[in-house]
Structure formats: structure tokens, C-alpha cells
């Protein structure tokens, strides 16, 4: 039986002067999972993660972290177990060197000096920032800033990382490197919740996907189940990864008929291009 790390039960949340943002959402995350949280803009993904981090409090429902009710916990309490990486790295960087920035969290949590230095060195090494330890964070590239934000989170030795669209605004290479880093952290035992719109990343890295649509959880399963073609994921504002879309187009093709295969491939590529256009 897998150990549940974060358990969200019947969570309801409404912003002031707005419709219900989350409606009785149940969402549990087990130790070691790499969960992708997806859905169209405004579906409640970021709100759910902010609730999990105690940045905001629910109208009703319960959140437990390793079995403990988080109702009375502050974000600072949650930070002992969960590292939160915001979408915009500029908003979470406030020191003048990368090393000081990464050390801020462990300092706040009262790490002993030796443990603090070790933790910062490990976080810098894991994120490939050791060479940039003395750099001014604001002059780094967006990808490097996002790594600083991740290093700052993992330096606190959390059991779980929540990342809100960490690859948005990054070039493909930086995005790839970032996902490889998250995968590596996950392999080392850190549970990951990734808020994203990128279906290619989900197909490649996530072990589980939860889909939110208008404040309701409408799907919770593996990426293979989500992209199997048995669900109308377009209704949830999602597009299947390119490989999946192609495989669906080619499902009924007799491979021996090369001309028909080529025609189908061309048609699938065109439809895919139209989808993105």
C-alpha cells in the first residue's frame, strides 16, 4: 500500500465576487509520485496548489500532510515538507547572489551551519548552478532563474516539490533540461506535482495525471489512460501529444499500403498544424 503524502478531501474554494473555483475536489498524492496537474486556464490548478501550501485557506474540506491536518498550518510550516516553485521566478528571488538566495530557506528553517552548507552545495550541484553561486540572480537567463528557484526549494530538503508551470516562457532546450532535473529529483525520492499545459512533458515524465475542469476533478489516472482516445480530452481544453495524435490517425492503416500510409501521415500532420494554429 503506497504511503499517502498529501491528501485533499472535498475541498471547496471560492474567490471573492467569483464563481466557485474548486468544487469538492478530492486529490491524494503518494510518496514518490510524479503527478501532473492539468486543465485549461482558470480551471483551478494554481488555486489547488496554493491551498495545498496553505497560502490560502479553503471554504470547506480537509487537507492533510502525512496524516496531519494542515488547517492551522502556515506556509512556513508547510515549507518544512513542501517546496513551492512559483510560475514567475523573478517574484521569488530577492537576494544578490545565487548562493545567498538558495541558503535563505534553510536559514529560515534553522538548519545547523554544517547541514546548511551541505544542503546549499547539494542543491546547487543538483541544479548545475555551482559555477554561478556568486552570480547576481537577476542577470541570469529565465531558465537559470527557474533553476535558482528550484535549488532554493530543494535546499530545504522537502519531501515534495510543487511547481507551477515551470517551463512556461522557456526555450525548448531549457525546458528539457528542467524536466530532466525534475525527473532526477523524483528518482531520488522527491514527490513532484507539476502544473503544466504541456502534454508532451506529461506523456514523457508524469506517472499520473489529474485533470481539472471548471473547478471539478474530471480525470485521475495514468497518461496512457488519458491519451488512450477513449475520452474527449478536447472538451477539457487539452490536446494529445503529437505522437499520440499521429498514432490515433494511423490506427486503422494497413502498413503494407505505403501510399495510403503516407497520405494519412500527411493528413495527420496537417490537422495537427491546424490544431496549433
Amino acid at each position, binding site marked *: 500500500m503506497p504511503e499517502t503524502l498529501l491528501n485533499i478531501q472535498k475541498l471547496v474554494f471560492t474567490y471573492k465576487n467569483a464563481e466557485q473555483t474548486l468544487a469538492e475536489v478530492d486529490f491524494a498524492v503518494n510518496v514518490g509520485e510524479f503527478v501532473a496537474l492539468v486543465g485549461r486556464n482558470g480551471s483551478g490548478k494554481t488555486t489547488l496548489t496554493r491551498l495545498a501550501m496553505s*497560502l490560502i485557506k479553503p471554504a470547506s474540506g480537509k487537507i492533510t500532510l502525512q496524516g496531519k491536518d494542515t488547517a492551522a498550518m502556515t506556509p512556513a510550516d508547510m515549507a518544512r515538507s513542501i517546496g513551492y516553485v512559483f510560475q514567475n521566478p523573478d517574484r521569488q528571488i530577492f537576494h544578490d547572489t545565487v548562493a545567498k538566495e538558495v541558503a535563505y530557506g534553510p536559514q*529560515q528553517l534553522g538548519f545547523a551551519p554544517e547541514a546548511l552548507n551541505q544542503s546549499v552545495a547539494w542543491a546547487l550541484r543538483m541544479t548545475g548552478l555551482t559555477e554561478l553561486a556568486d552570480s547576481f540572480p537577476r542577470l541570469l537567463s529565465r531558465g537559470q532563474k527557474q533553476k535558482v528557484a528550484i535549488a532554493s526549494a530543494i535546499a530545504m530538503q522537502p519531501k515534495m516539490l510543487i511547481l507551477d508551470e515551470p517551463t512556461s516562457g522557456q526555450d525548448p532546450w531549457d525546458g528539457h533540461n528542467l524536466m530532466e532535473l525534475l525527473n532526477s529529483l523524483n528518482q531520488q525520492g522527491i514527490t513532484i506535482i507539476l502544473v503544466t499545459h504541456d502534454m508532451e512533458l506529461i506523456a514523457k515524465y508524469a506517472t499520473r495525471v489529474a485533470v481539472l475542469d471548471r473547478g471539478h476533478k474530471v480525470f485521475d489516472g495514468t497518461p496512457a489512460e488519458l491519451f488512450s482516445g477513449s475520452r474527449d480530452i478536447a472538451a477539457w481544453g487539452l490536446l494529445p501529444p503529437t505522437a499520440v495524435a499521429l498514432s490515433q490517425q494511423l490506427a486503422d492503416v494497413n502498413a503494407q499500403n505505403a501510399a495510403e500510409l503516407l497520405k494519412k501521415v500527411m493528413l495527420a500532420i496537417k490537422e495537427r498544424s491546424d490544431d496549433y494554429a
Partner: protein
Amino acid sequence: MPKLAPLTKLILTAAVSVWALLIPMLIGQIALVVGQLLLLGLYRPVGKHWKAVSGLALFAGLLVAIQYVFGSSLEFSLMSGFKMLVMSLVFVFMLATTRLQDLTAALVSQCRIPYEYAFMFTSALRFVPDFLEESKAVREAQACRGYVFHGNPVKRLMDYIAIVEPLVLRAISRSETMAMSLELRGFGHKGRRQFTADVALNRPDYAAMLFMLLLTIGLTIVR
């Protein structure tokens, strides 16, 4: 409550400040504060405006305390605090009930202030909520890194100073982006501008202005 034009509210802002200077009695200052709060209440402001009022009241209280501690009489200290409150509350009223684009339109088309200066004034006002929002985002990021927002006030102040630098840098960066965006949309264009905001004066505005004029004359004579 009749909708007053931005120009009327601008004149009210100046008039209230003049009244605060003309009225020599504490009871008069209190009446001005109460009057402004009632006026603000009639426009059904949202929570953040009441928060602004509370902040100003707190600041006025501090001013009174400092004046009193450093040797002024209680009445003089209270007068200073209430005068400050009267003069600042009227800005809360104006900003809470007027859209910034309407204010810009009124300053340019009715007060004949050059567009660049009017825009600079309203943009500066717009930066306050932006700055507060940025500050909140950074504080949230700090909280997620284990920082606790209570305890020793000196430590809290030092921690807050740490976020001032990134906030200022971001504000500069944002203003640069905004300046470029404005230039790219014809900000420097010379000639007539068209405003979509309706800032024309109506009967309630003329009535309000007459009231303000009479009260100012009356207070001047009494003084």
C-alpha cells in the same frame, strides 16, 4: 447617490484641504472626517478602501502620539492628526470612486494639463496597487521558504528591507516596459487626443461646486 464628474472630485480634493486649513476647531476637523466617511460609504467602497482608511487612521494616531510625546499640547496634537486625516481621506474617496482613465481625461480636457503630465500623475497612482501586489507576491515566496511574519519588529523590518531592492528593480523594469509599450502606441503623438471617458459636468456637479464655493467663502469670512 448622484455620480459626480472627476473634475468635481478633483475640486473637492482641493476644497477639503482648504477647509482643513481654515477650520480652527477640533470639532470642525472631526466633522470633516465624519462627513468624508459618510460620503465614501454612500459610494459602497470595497474592503481595500476601508483598509486604506484604517491605515491612514493608524498613521494619524501615530502622528498625534509623536506630537504629544515631543511636547505639544493634546489639542494641538489632535488637530495635526485630524488635519492630516482630513487631507488624505479625500484622496481615498477620489481614487475609490474615480477610474484613472476618467481622471486623466478630466485633467487633460477640462484642467488643460498637458497629457504627458496628467498621464504621469495617474500612472504614479496606478503604481501603488501594483507595488503592493508585487510586495505580496514576494512575501508569499518568502513564506514558502519558511519565513514567519511575526515576532521581533526589528527583525521584520530588516527582512522587509531585503525585499525592497527587488521590488524597486522590478518597478523600474516594469516602467521601462510600459514606456516602450506607450511609445509603440503613439504616446508621443502631437495633436488632438480622443478620450472615450464621459467626464462632462452635470447638475449635481454644479450643485456640489456651488456648495463648495459657498462653504469656502463662509469659512474664510468666519476665520
